């Protein structure tokens, strides 16, 4: 079995986000990025699903962060890592076009990716790409088991409700949470991978026709429009008193 995992580099929300000079994007100058946390869960689930003879292939767009994401994936146990080169992409539609080219060349049985990312303005990658590739897709998945050429998955709804589906492989799954907390790769192991292994490259030729919409504005929500800020504990205690809870 061949399992592919799509990885995406996204702004770390712990950082302060600022709007760029055009007012239509993020100021990325001092911004820190990291692996999309749901992609980390997708990678973990792939590693848990894979048996000894199975292959786990990590895929990422070239450019900033790709080495870090891919060598880390190898350090965690991925069998191969492919970096997509040749062109940059924009948005979910661009990523879907790029990833589908390498996926068609690799013919994988199962493709996992994070359910969403913090900047997927034009749709979620998993189900969008699946549809373009003519593959079935279930997203918001928190449990997966495989038997032959079918996957049995749990899709989460609201209020803790879940639905069980059976899906014929090859299929795409948008992972919400792996059944275990994503493993940690020590820096020494990642360094070792950087020295002993190489990243494969795949050159993309088509980056799609775009999202069909244009970003016309970027702004921070009106911070704390309603919140009254409290700076000392006595005030907070008084507030709780006033609310009749103490």
């Amino acid at each position, binding site marked *: 079995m061949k399992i592919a995992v799509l990885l995406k580099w996204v702004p770390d929300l712990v950082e302060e986000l600022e709007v760029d000079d055009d007012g239509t994007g993020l100021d990325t100058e001092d911004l820190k990025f990291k692996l999309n946390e749901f992609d980390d869960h997708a990678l973990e689930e792939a590693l848990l699903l894979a048996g000894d003879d199975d292959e786990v292939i990590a895929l990422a767009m070239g450019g900033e962060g790709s080495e870090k994401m891919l060598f880390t994936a190898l350090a965690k146990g991925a069998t191969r890592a492919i970096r997509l080169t040749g062109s940059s992409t924009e948005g979910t539609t661009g990523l879907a076009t790029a990833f589908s080219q390498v996926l068609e060349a690799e013919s994988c049985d199962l493709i996992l990716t994070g359910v969403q990312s913090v900047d997927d303005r034009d749709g979620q990658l998993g189900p*969008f790409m699946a549809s373009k590739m003519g593959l079935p897709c*279930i997203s918001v998945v928190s449990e997966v088991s495989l038997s032959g050429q079918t996957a049995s998955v749990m899709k989460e709804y609201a209020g803790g409700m879940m*639905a*069980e589906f*059976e899906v014929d492989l090859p299929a795409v799954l948008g992972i919400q949470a792996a059944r275990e907390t994503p493993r940690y790769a020590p820096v020494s192991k990642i360094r070792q991978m950087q020295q002993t292994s190489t990243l494969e490259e795949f050159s993309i030729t088509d980056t799609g026709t775009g999202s069909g919409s244009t970003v016309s504005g970027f702004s921070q*929500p009106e911070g704390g429009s309603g919140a009254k*800020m409290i700076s000392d504990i006595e005030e907070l205690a008084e507030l709780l008193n006033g609310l009749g809870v103490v």
Partner: protein
Amino acid sequence: MAGTLVVCEHLAGKFSDITFEMLDLANSLGTGEINALTFGSMAENAGELGIANKVISASCSNDFNPETYSAATVAAIESTSPDLILIASTSMGYDLANPVAASLDLPLVAYCTGIQNNGEDFVCTSSLYGGKMNVSSKVSGPVVAMVLSGTHDADSGRREGAPSMSEIAAPATDGKIRFKRLIEPEPGDVDITQSEILIAVGRGIGSKDDIEVAEELAELLNADIACSRPLVDAGWMEKSRQVGKSGFKVKPKLYITLGISGAPEHIEGMKDSATIIAINSDENAPIFDVAHYGVVEDLFEVCEELIEELE
């Protein structure tokens, strides 16, 4: 303008609140006729969809299936040619809006909190980056917009009426996806939807052991403990304590957050609480946009001092 198609979401035999929120939004836009698409036997409840001019009922199972529901939605779009297609930004919506937009080559705008109709085009506002940025997209119809829960008024979208009815057959699909069953959540020791006071713990708490400080405070305030999703995924808290999109919707008298950033998926579960007090060390955390009171400080310091003060 050729009107709006509202794709009605339901679960367990009832239209979800987001369905009425989308009807409210469609109604406020004035883009002409509003058609509502329902699935399976939900058309029997068409009387609740009074804002719609017409209800199109897709004959298929009541159980959501990405393949059949997408095929039916595509058929409804082809037969009504709407300018705007509203689909919920929910678990079901993810597996519906994306395949519909991809297969019809329509632009898709996700996480919409608001839509403006300029006559010529639409401006859709999306809440991105965990709620830290509002991004507007200009797009001319037809467009698929995914609407976030909790952004419009379900009560004003719920109107009795007698829309005209029509039926469409759900086109045949490959049957690569098969629905098996719905699983109800296991009841927890506490029903947080009934709690009057909740202290909600987020990833800022750092470790499972440190939840203790929140429990100590909860005892003094007679509160129950709730949490954000990452704590459930980490196995630190029971699912029955999770507030938000994939957890529970709560409306307590008082909701205190400790180290919760305020991602849209959390906010949709708690924003209707009567009083919200947020404690977070990041002054830009979006939780302060919905909170009534905010404390920008280390949660451990606040908890310790508060416990001392209250004792």
